[in-house]
């Protein structure tokens, strides 16, 4: 293991010859159009400055020129890997503002679809992370599993990524038996697969050597930067919006918040892998407890939340996703603020990557699970 002290010695020996390495905007490791301007001393990073905005679409402005309901499709397109959570946050904020009741069945289905989405998102991350580390095969195994989730959600919502499934007061349409049975089957299918991943990847010595004690982010840094999700839980703080700021019907389920005190890439990896297990647990309970009833509550035709500002936070796959809406009592939002987890998680990269080797910095970047449209919005 190489420590920062060694590196500072290394760069003060008189030959301060640094060069700038442009990682991206087109680079295999950035998974999208992120550019990292790296000032390098050999293979050591002296400063890595992320440059974002390449796919900035100004969703927040779009929110100000359409009705509340018309903004719904946008919410699936911010973090396309965990679209359900984002729709949930926006729908939740508007429901809170307009005091719309959501029937229990709809809340349960929201939990089921959100957790399925969380698993699929973590699976993409798992595969892509292995790809970053040079292991190609687990990516395709993970995609095979994810495909089952996408098939389920496609059967339910009609889309594979941009679901746009939740509505103010409930859901777009009710779940059917196929979906419920499919979810149940998936839970049974997924558990042995997780065991297989553990043997193939988690226990692999090459993999462990690449992650253990690499890219340490401590709880203090997470707090100061507002890093959430697996990043803060990998730093030992069991912060999870589902538990600490309960929303929907999450307090009806029994699940753990996996957290590891090490704060290294391995801790973040383990947190995500265990979260898949916990999500399976929630799915099992939610499917068993799913109440009957309508899938959408009483909703006014045109929604005009009373003037004021409201927030709603959910635990998205990447961390705390908060929507802050400001209403002036009209049918068009006055302001929609999207607080996205990847943005905060990436903001600490500059500090966390200082003095690291290029290889390790990429392992660190991968472990943050960045989705670029989520940063750029």
């Amino acid at each position, binding site marked *: 293991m190489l420590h920062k002290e060694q590196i500072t010695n290394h760069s003060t020996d008189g030959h301060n010859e640094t060069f700038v390495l442009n990682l991206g905007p087109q680079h295999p490791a950035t998974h999208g159009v992120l550019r990292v301007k790296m000032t390098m001393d050999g293979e050591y990073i002296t400063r890595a400055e992320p440059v974002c905005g390449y796919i900035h679409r100004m969703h927040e402005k779009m929110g100000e020129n359409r009705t509340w*309901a018309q903004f719904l499709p946008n919410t699936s397109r911010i973090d396309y890997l965990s679209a359900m959570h984002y729709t949930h946050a926006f729908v939740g904020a508007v429901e809170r503002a307009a005091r719309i009741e959501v029937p229990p069945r709809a809340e349960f289905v929201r939990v089921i679809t959100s957790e399925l989405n969380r698993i699929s998102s973590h699976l993409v991350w798992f595969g892509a992370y292995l790809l970053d580390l040079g292991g190609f095969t687990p990516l395709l195994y993970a995609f095979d599993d994810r495909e089952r989730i996408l098939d389920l959600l496609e*059967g339910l919502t*009609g*889309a594979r990524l*941009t679901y746009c499934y939740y509505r103010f007061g409930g859901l777009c349409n009710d779940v059917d038996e196929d979906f419920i049975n499919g979810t149940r089957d998936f839970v049974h299918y997924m558990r042995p697969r997780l065991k297989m991943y553990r043997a193939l990847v988690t226990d692999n*010595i090459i993999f462990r050597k690449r992650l253990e004690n690499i890219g340490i982010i401590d709880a203090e840094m997470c707090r100061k930067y507002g890093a959430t999700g697996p990043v803060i839980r990998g730093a030992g703080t069991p912060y999870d919006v589902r538990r600490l700021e309960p929303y929907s019907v999450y307090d009806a389920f029994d699940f753990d918040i996996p957290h590891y005190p090490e704060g290294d890439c391995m801790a973040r990896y383990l947190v995500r892998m265990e979260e898949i297990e916990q999500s399976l647990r929630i799915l099992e309970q939610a499917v068993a407890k799913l109440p009957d009833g309508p899938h959408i509550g009483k909703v006014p035709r045109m929604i005009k939340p009373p003037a004021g500002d409201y927030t709603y936070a959910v635990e998205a796959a990447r961390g705390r996703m908060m929507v802050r809406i400001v209403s002036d009592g009209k049918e068009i939002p006055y302001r929609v603020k999207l607080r996205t987890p990847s943005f905060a998680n990436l903001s600490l990269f500059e500090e966390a990557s200082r003095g690291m080797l290029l290889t390790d910095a990429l392992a660190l970047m991968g472990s943050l699970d960045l989705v670029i449209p989520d940063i750029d919005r």
Partner: protein
Amino acid sequence: MKKNALKEIVTGFASLLTGMRITLAQFFKPPVTVNYPRQSLKMPARYRGHITFVRDQETGKSLCIACKSCQKACPSDCIVVEGVKREGEKRKSVTDFKLDFTKCSLCGSCVEVCPVDALEFSKHYNLASTNKEKFVVIDLVKDLEKRGK
């Protein structure tokens, strides 16, 4: 310390062999992919393709009453509806329904908002063209006429 290092080498090597055993087991299993475009999957009933008119089984015409709810509901302004009220008919009937598919985000607001359920999602997903013009205007009225034949 020394002992740990030796143990790590042994368990590490064992973990590599476990990994190789797993991939070899996968090697002898059949592929899970679909050989697109030679094979393709059937889209589920709720699949959201571009919108299309529901065909009235009796008249063979559209159910659309040109109320323009869909046009108003659309977040992307990609629907244009025109209709006339013909003599002897209670409601307006549609004369022109154009969808700009290049802007459509397939959210389904139009289908949901339709008071007479005149719209549905098509199951086409193999749409491709080298020419943008093909999708700028999808004429639902003409499309329905074509299906009638």
